[in-house]
């Protein structure tokens, strides 16, 4: 109790200095949390990937299509339960800043994604309407879409004006599921292409393959690719997670830079905090010497400095951690659709806590050692 009293009062002796240090810490911990959340958001798709889903695409590039006839041949591979088609549509809703992913998918697509929950009556309505589409809850909430609304898109990959009728709104099984997307009938796209640009018809961007056992993922991938070896359109099959990470890898240098910046922020505040503690300890040299004179040992002096440093870091870190979630929500809002899943993870909060503690300890080491070692007679002579 005595130690705590002394620590608290010492911490607020120079209120402005402490306030500025606490603010700096709070901002640093907040910045660290937000930057780490950005990195997490980048990996969110891969993290949410299912281990029982594979993705088969052209071995050359994603921009090359596979023949629709591959579907049945993939289905015949041992271990494969479901095969669904998916084409990236890339349409623009009103203006480019309203970006959200749109996929032309086969009707069995949602069977592979049990994490998307769609009411049965809406599913039936969707299946019955060739121009029908499904939108995720996050997307519907963002633009105020309702079932029955017409959703017009300006095609970028597939030029022209496209109109869809929203027949259902699907939810994610939990908040981490990405539902800011739109799905519509692959057949509708294909039939339109047959009319407008026949050479682009019957092409599939990716096949999503459902397998019976995650342990068979590697074997099933090899077997699928084996089927199409030496064909005109060889395939590359990989797990959904590897497929998603492939996208992340395209921007891994940016992610690395973000991570480095997040740690640099912590290092900077560590230096600021160390300076604060060094100044405080230096100003109190005579007091520490007096305490030693009265019989308090060097360990008590060191503890006093460590406790004060940890106290200030706990305040700053605590404020920073408390602000992270609201700031993340604001950031998500401001970023529009760039980060559909932007939630502060438990790991990030733990790391914020660890960073604050590390700053507290590191900042106190040198002042504590110096104060503990100072000779009483030298300390008593110190100018305060």
């Amino acid at each position: 109790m005595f130690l705590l009293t002394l620590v608290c009062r010492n911490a607020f002796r120079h209120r402005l200095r402490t306030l500025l240090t606490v603010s700096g810490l709070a901002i640093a911990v907040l910045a660290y949390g937000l930057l780490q959340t950005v990195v997490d958001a980048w990996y969110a798709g891969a993290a949410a990937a299912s281990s029982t889903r594979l993705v088969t695409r052209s071995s050359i590039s994603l921009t090359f299509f596979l023949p629709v006839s591959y579907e049945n041949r993939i289905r015949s591979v041992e271990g494969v339960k479901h095969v669904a088609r998916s084409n990236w549509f890339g349409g623009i809703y009103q203006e480019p800043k309203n970006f959200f992913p749109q996929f032309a998918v086969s009707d069995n697509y949602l069977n592979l994604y049990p994490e998307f929950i769609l009411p049965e009556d809406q599913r039936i309505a969707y299946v019955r309407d060739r121009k029908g589409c499904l939108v995720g809850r996050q997307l519907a909430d963002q633009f105020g879409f309702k079932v029955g609304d017409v959703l017009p898109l300006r095609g970028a990959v597939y030029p022209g004006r496209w109109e869809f009728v929203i027949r259902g709104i699907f939810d994610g099984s939990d908040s981490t599921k990405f539902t800011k997307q739109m799905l519509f009938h692959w057949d509708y796209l294909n039939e339109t292409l047959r009319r407008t640009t026949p050479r682009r018809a019957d092409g599939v961007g990716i096949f999503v393959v459902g397998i019976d056992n995650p342990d068979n993922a590697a074997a099933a991938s090899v077997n699928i690719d084996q089927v199409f070896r030496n064909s005109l359109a060889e395939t590359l099959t990989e797990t959904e997670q590897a497929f998603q990470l492939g996208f992340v890898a395209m921007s891994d240098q940016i992610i690395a830079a973000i991570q480095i910046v997040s740690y640099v922020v912590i290092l900077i505040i560590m230096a600021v905090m160390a300076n604060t503690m060094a100044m405080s300890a230096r100003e109190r040299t005579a007091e520490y010497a007096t305490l030693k004179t009265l019989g308090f040992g060097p360990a008590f002096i060191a503890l006093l400095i460590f406790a004060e440093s940890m106290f200030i870091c706990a305040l700053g870190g605590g404020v920073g951690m408390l602000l992270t979630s609201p700031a993340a929500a604001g950031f998500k809002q401001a970023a529009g659709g760039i980060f559909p899943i932007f939630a502060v993870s438990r790991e990030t909060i733990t790391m914020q806590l660890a960073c604050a503690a590390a700053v507290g300890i590191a900042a106190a080491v040198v002042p504590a050692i110096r104060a503990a070692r100072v000779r009483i007679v030298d300390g008593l002579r110190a100018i305060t």
Partner: protein
Amino acid sequence: MSAPRVETRVEPRVEPRAEPRAEPLVEIHNLAKSYVRGEQIVPVLSDITLDIQEGDFTALMGPSGSGKTTLLNLVAGIDKPDCGTLRVGGLDITTLTESQLADWRASNVGFIFQFYNLMPVLTAYENVELPLMLTGLGRSERRERVEMTLSVVGLADRMKHYPNELSGGQQQRVAIARAVITDPRLIVADEPTGDLDRSSAADILAMMQRLNTELGKTIIMVTHDGQSARAAKAIIHLEKGEIIGNVEPASA
């Protein structure tokens, strides 16, 4: 020309006792201390031999740099001599480790400093309570002692005041209360009136005399003020690290 070095065995009682003399509280034999400044070794004290009896009130006088504060620090166990023996209460404190010295100081020595050296973030009550934190006393027992001691020094109504809310004289009285709270045998005071006006200084000296005469505390006080030194029972003069002449009674 330097003053002749005199090996002095101090018998600093102004009024001789009728009964046989007890073993001195402080026994110093051939004590020397020097400091290293850069590549130079600067002798501060050399060949000091001195006895101080229990119940004495001794003033150490001398010009700046004469070694009086160094001698006080050695006797109080906050510095270590280069050579010689230094026994306090029969214990050779030169043989103690830092940790043992800290424990010894906590229970045997009370300190009064020129600039009070109170903790600015603690109230008068808490400052006085500070040394008791190192004892096994319970909260209520500590409270009783602190309140009583602060009453003795006339600060019962200032317990909750912080040092910056007290005058210099009041701060020094808090420091005196802190020095005696653990009931030490020895009280060392380094220029206790050096930062006070004449009236406050007189109060502090009167209080120290009371500690000596009424409570029997042995006090060693460093001062370069002759008037302050007269509050003591005996005066020891130091110059260039040596004791000059014989110990003189303060009334002389």
